[in-house]
């Protein structure tokens, strides 16, 4: 079976600004794929081209076998979209909005099931204007799912959430994977990409700097051993953490010292990310 999304050398400029300078990636069916990068990296431009909102200047794009620039109705029947910013009719209830959108699709899901899935069961009959910011985002997700799409686009789905709301949203996005959906997610939160995505493309300045699973992106990096000695923070970077740790603890034991706060860890995606994008300080 072909990929859900195939992007080759995608380019887009706004006037003299190059938003995308030739990016290439594939998203497999059933995969959760993350586009990670600082503001202005080109994430939203890329997603909006794939959703059919913007025209590309160069390269080829195929989404579910369609060219999204033509955005035919059959294509729109099979995608679900959560925009970075959008509102819905404030005077309608959660249920009415779901029913309205369900009517646009040939094979909608049961609306009450969807409302429960996104955790708005208790707000079923509440008007949209009474919902909190986080609840409105869940409503956005609900109406993106109500048409039972194969592919769901989530453009910064948790921006502005408090930690509890973010964790709840992560749970919902994981449940999309269990439903067999393909998900394209943009985020500038590293932990979000690490938690949710099967693979991540790190984007900056309209280019993909790195592409792989979160563990692949961090695998090539060295381990870091941290501890405190006589109240002073120490850290050792090493390619051989077992040997280095053994030597360190052996020395400490011989001297009868306790190494406070001893830890060994791989660089997180965050370290890699900051290495990649942080140098020019535009994050």
């Amino acid at each position, binding site marked *: 079976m072909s990929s859900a999304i195939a992007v080759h050398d995608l380019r887009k400029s706004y006037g003299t600004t190059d938003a995308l300078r030739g990016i290439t990636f594939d998203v497999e069916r059933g995969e959760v794929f993350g586009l990670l990068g600082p503001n202005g990296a080109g994430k939203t431009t890329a997603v909006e081209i794939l959703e059919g909102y913007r025209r590309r200047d160069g390269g080829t794009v195929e989404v579910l076998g369609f060219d999204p620039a033509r955005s035919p109705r059959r294509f*729109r*029947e099979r995608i679900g979209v959560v925009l970075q*910013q*959008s*509102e*819905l*009719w404030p005077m*309608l209830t959660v249920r009415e909005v779901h029913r309205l*959108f369900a009517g646009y699709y040939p094979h909608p899901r049961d609306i009450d099931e969807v409302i429960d899935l996104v955790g708005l069961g208790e707000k079923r009959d509440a008007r949209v204007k009474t919902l909190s910011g986080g609840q409105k985002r869940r409503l956005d997700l609900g109406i993106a799912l109500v048409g039972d799409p194969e592919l769901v686009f989530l453009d910064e789905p948790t921006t502005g959430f408090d930690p509890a709301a973010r964790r709840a949203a992560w749970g919902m996005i994981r449940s999309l994977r269990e439903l067999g959906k393909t998900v394209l997610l943009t985020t500038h939160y590293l932990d979000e990409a690490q938690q949710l995505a099967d693979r991540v493309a790190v984007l900056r300045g309209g280019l993909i700097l790195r592409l792989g699973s979160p563990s692949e992106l961090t695998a090539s990096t060295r381990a870091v051993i941290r501890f405190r000695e006589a109240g002073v923070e120490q850290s050792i970077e090493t390619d051989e953490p077992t040997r280095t740790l053994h030597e360190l603890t052996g020395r400490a034991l011989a001297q009868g010292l306790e190494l406070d706060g001893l830890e060994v860890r791989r660089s997180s995606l965050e370290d890699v990310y900051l290495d990649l994008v942080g140098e020019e300080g535009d994050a």
Partner: protein
Amino acid sequence: MSLFVHQLRAEQLVFWRSREAAIFIFIFPPLLFLLLGSVYGEGDIDGHPVTSYLVAGMLGYAVANTAFGGLAIQLVIRREYGILKRIRSTPLPPSLYLSCALVSNVLVYVLQAAVVVALGLTLYDAERPAATASLVAVLALGAVSFAGLGFGAAALIRSSDAVAAVVNVVVLPMSFLSGAFGSTEGYPSALQAVADVLPLTYFLDLTLAAYVDGQAPWDDPGAVGILAAWGAVGYLVAVRRFGWEPRER
């Protein structure tokens, strides 16, 4: 067809559920009619009760207020809030969305017109329309033409904060100049010259002719042509300039 009904029902639900729309768009013209009728409702003009003229005038004010103003306000606000952009990614065909917005506003206007006529008949002894079928045809032509101007205005107005003000700055002076609130015979010639190019002037001519004199719209093809031409300009501007994405947010 069922998708059309689904969408139209939603448009109606949104309209009537929104208190601002219901009050400013629907209630205001009949309210103004009640005020004008109680102040200027006495007497005859050319053998017809003056309230017949007031009814016809208010049908004109209402077409500008609802088919033009209400539609423009609704479209700009939805565009700037991102509702139109969100709808654009669903399978709902854009042409179907826009035609439902048009028909929904025309429905509101038809109801409004019925209320104004009923108030005129019951409270102020206005005459019944002299030619009902002609009147309905004129109102339909007017609603579709002013809706075209509403689409055009929505394409040109950038801001959801400004749209209601812009619409009122157009609708109220136009209604005054065209004679929706009373005869323009005493106006200075400069103002009458302005009135001579306004679409509402011709809509009011046609409405009065049907309501009071029982004439058919084709008795005045010039007025029909000018009104339709204004509408066509509106649709043309919309086709070239209308966008689905927020401009200011």
